């Protein structure tokens, strides 16, 4: 099977002898109560698929509340994964298979399930109480409303209880294993190897033998249940993907970002300092970095967002590769301090893992609505470079890129990620660590002015970066600060011409970086009429839409921006080559506004702020609509 509508076929096309049916891709969604361990189940299934060699992409979705009331719609947590035997770019538009652990999970997710898709439900959870909590007046398992799907009813609670009864777990721990029952069943249905999951459980619960035994027992029971009852007429196989040769790991964006920072520090030959304050969805970067003290990483959980960046500025002054990280509301609090870093011209990376806003907004949902805020969300004339990550694995390289710019140009750099990248995962072809770029800079150690004077704002003639003199260097004692500084001596200056010069210089310094970043590349047909321009996490959906249309014979091209400030030097020329420009964004048209303003191009937007990513279909449809108009 191939093309746009594969997935788990219905009974008509399946082979009857229970031999396996081959699929090129399948989208599976696990949905349950936030206490049901759906994220863990999804991650385990994903890792087993990764180990098997599939390409994959994941999309977790969870409530903002840690434990929303059990059994209710707001408490539903889900994890979607697409596995494929080819290079896929998103977690898929529509699940082919939905696992619903309770009525609320069914209600919240059924609308997304592909017609005639496979629906696996935990029958035991469909009791009166749970049905009422989910707002069902009649049991959907009994009223014929699910006839359009291939329903597999499994009494998961009772089977799990039975499976774990000799493992020693008691009380609430018993039913905790039912997520493993579910992935055991899926492991059978999709012919996943069992070893990765069993090994993971053994390692993870090495100190809790009973829990390990219960999870493994439940997992095996799920597998055996499928096998023994012939739960479906066929099982399905998705062969390993023919990815570029190399060593792969499955990685989330936040982990890749943290590792990228560790790598950046090594590439810069500097100690890494991360000053931050916990916030969803950026906290995992702190969690990950705090594990790697043997790399000399210093993490500082500050008293608030402002102190988070404050400590990073202090560390930057002291000569570290300094980083702060947050999400929109936290970045707003850091705004004044970013201006200080910009004014004192210290190297600093400011990570913004964007989420739905404004205010608390949708803390666990993706949005790209902080682009203009990144460019302009400060007082005064305050240009900073902005770099955007476009997929989970892309975070690694762009952490290094942000560090390169910050150090080379002595400037704060905003590094944008979002909820989709942060928690989503994909296979990542591991780089050869010896081939990572050298981004080290020379810190000044001798006076640079007449008579042994040190002139802290005497700039490099190429980059316009000021020298970085770190405390401890004899003879270079100097003072920096937020007040405007004389263009050479760095002394406080209120001179009108000097402020003009310094303002222009700071702007020019950032603009000039355009000559030091890769040109934007065209993907698809050079001679197409339409260019789809994107940035950030929409890359996968845009590329998949382009691939789909080109496969059906249409001519279309896309370009994806990593550098949003400054734009690559060739962007204007690229835009000029196309009649029409479409800019899909998970905001109300922020890049579109910039492109229109900077290049006077009548770009059109495809905009969505619904807390969910674009589907491939949405983008493809919009392109078609523009082609036909």
């Amino acid at each position: 099977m191939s093309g746009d509508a594969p997935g788990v076929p219905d009974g008509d096309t399946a082979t009857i002898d229970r031999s396996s049916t081959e699929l090129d891709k399948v989208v599976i969604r696990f949905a349950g109560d936030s206490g049901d361990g759906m994220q863990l189940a999804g991650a385990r299934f994903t890792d087993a698929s990764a180990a098997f060699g599939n390409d994959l992409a994941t999309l977790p979705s969870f409530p903002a509340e840690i434990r929303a009331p059990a059994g209710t719609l707001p408490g539903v947590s889900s994890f979607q994964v697409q596995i494929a035997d080819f290079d896929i770019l998103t977690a898929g538009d529509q699940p082919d298979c939905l696992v619903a652990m309770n009525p609320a999970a069914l209600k919240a997710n059924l609308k997304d399930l592909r017609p005639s898709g496979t629906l696996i439900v935990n029958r035991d959870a469909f009791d009166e109480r749970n049905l009422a909590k989910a707002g069902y007046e009649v049991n959907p398992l009994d009223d014929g409303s699910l006839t359009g799907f291939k329903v597999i009813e499994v009494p998961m609670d009772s089977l799990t209880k039975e499976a774990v009864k000799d493992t020693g777990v008691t009380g609430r721990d018993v039913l905790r294993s039912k997520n493993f029952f579910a992935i055991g069943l899926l492991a059978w249905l999709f012919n996943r190897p069992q070893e990765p999951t069993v090994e993971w459980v053994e390692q993870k619960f090495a100190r809790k033998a009973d829990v390990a035994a219960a999870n493994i027992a439940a997992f095996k029971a799920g597998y055996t249940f499928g096998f023994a009852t012939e739960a479906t007429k066929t099982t399905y196989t998705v062969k390993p993907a023919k990815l570029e040769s190399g060593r792969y790991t499955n990685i989330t964006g936040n982990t890749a970002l943290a590792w990228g920072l560790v790598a950046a520090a090594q590439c810069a030959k500097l100690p890494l300092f991360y000053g931050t304050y916990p916030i969803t969805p950026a906290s995992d970067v702190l969690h990950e970095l705090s594990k790697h003290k043997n790399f000399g990483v210093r993490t500082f959980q500050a008293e608030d967002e402002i102190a988070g960046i404050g400590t990073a500025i202090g560390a930057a002054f002291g000569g570290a590769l300094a980083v702060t990280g947050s999400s929109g509301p936290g970045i707003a609090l850091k705004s004044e301090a970013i201006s200080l870093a910009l004014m004192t011209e210290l190297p600093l990376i400011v990570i913004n893992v964007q989420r739905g806003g404004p205010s608390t907004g949708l803390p666990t949902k993706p949005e790209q609505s902080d682009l203009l805020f990144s460019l302009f969300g400060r007082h005064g004339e305050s240009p900073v470079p902005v770099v955007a990550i476009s997929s989970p694995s892309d975070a690694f390289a762009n952490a290094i890129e942000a560090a390169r710019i910050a150090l080379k140009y002595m400037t704060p750099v905003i590094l944008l990620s979002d909820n989709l990248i942060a928690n989503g995962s994909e296979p990542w072809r591991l780089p050869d660590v010896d081939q990572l770029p050298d981004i080290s800079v020379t810190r000044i150690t001798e006076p640079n002015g007449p008579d042994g004077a040190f002139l802290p704002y005497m700039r490099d003639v190429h980059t316009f970066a000021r020298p970085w003199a770190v405390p401890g260097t004899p003879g270079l004692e100097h003072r920096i600060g937020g007040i405007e500084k004389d263009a050479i001596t760095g002394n406080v200056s209120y001179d009108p011409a000097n402020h003009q010069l310094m303002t222009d210089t700071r702007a020019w310094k950032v603009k000039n970086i355009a000559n030091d970043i890769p040109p934007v590349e065209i993907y698809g047909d050079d001679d197409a009429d339409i260019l789809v321009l994107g940035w950030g996490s929409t890359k996968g959906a845009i590329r998949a839409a382009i691939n789909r249309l080109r496969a059906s014979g249409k001519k279309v091209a896309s370009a994806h921006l990593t550098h949003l400030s400054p734009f690559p030097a060739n962007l204007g020329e690229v835009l000029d080559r196309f009649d029409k420009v479409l800019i899909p964004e998970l905001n109300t048209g922020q890049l579109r506004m910039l492109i229109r303003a900077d290049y006077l191009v009548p770009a059109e937007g495809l905009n969505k702020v619904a807390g969910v990513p674009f589907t491939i279909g949405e983008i493809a449809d919009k392109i078609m609509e523009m082609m036909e108009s």
Partner: protein
Amino acid sequence: MTTPTYTRADFQTDQEVRWCPGCGDYTILAAVQGYMAQMGVPKEKIVFISGIGCSSRFPYYMNTYGMHSIHGRAPAIASGLAASRPDLDVWVITGDGDALSIGGNHLIHALRRNLNIKILLFNNQIYGLTKGQYSPTSEVGKSTKSTPYGSIDYPFNPVSLAIGAEAGFVARTIDMDRPHTQAMLEAAHQHQGAALVEIYQNCNVFNDKAFLQLTGKEERSHNRIDLRAGEPIVFGPNGDHAVVWREGKATVVDTASVPTSDIMVHDPSRLDPSTAFALSRLSHGPYGPTPVGIFRDVSRPTYEDAMSHQLVEAQEKRGPGDLDKLISSLGTWTVD
């Protein structure tokens, strides 16, 4: 490494000092520069970080490394610097508005974390740079530009606040008394960990003579309580007042009215902060008998030492960071 010998002039910069003539900041600057010359630390190792306010111009006048940062955030910036560079000698210059109003959060957390930073809090009980509004240490009823009917804000007692925030070292001194100021600077510097020195600083433009009770010749002889380690706490022209423990608090009495054995003997090294706190409650502003000197001087491990220790331990246990190992740590598979 031998430390060069310095004079006060080595710590002066070519920048014109721009405080109002007669401002208490001048005498504090002279005291600090004078102390730095004898401190025994190479000047390239010294960093002054300040926030915003009159006093926060201070780093520009110190020929050391320095940063004049943003309002209230100096303790946070200094914390990051000290945590990442334990080899440096980090000083924070702040004022009552900077440290206790906009930057209150950073101050208390820097103190409780116990970074090895020395915080000099210039308390003039007024906002000077913004031309005369009441501050979080101004007295209730104070008439200022923003309180024409008198302030209704109850003030902080900075020493009480610092002790409450788990500070290991807390002292108070007065701008006019250079030897005392320098003694407090030295004690703060000797202390391993966060130190807060409240310096009563006269703003002769917007709040002149706020500290008269402690600086006027006649007044100070009645009101200044010098806390000296190991000595009974007595004050007044002929030592005629004493501090005793009564009804669960430190109380001023006539020395003659109590047996000598009742008089509190000052011990800033007491682990429990209750006594230090009680002494800080003898006054709530410089309006009557007010203690100066070291209230508390108790060491505990510093944040940066603990942090460095964890780094060393991790390296001993797991070896120096190996990037390839790190990126392979979640399990890998190979595609041919």
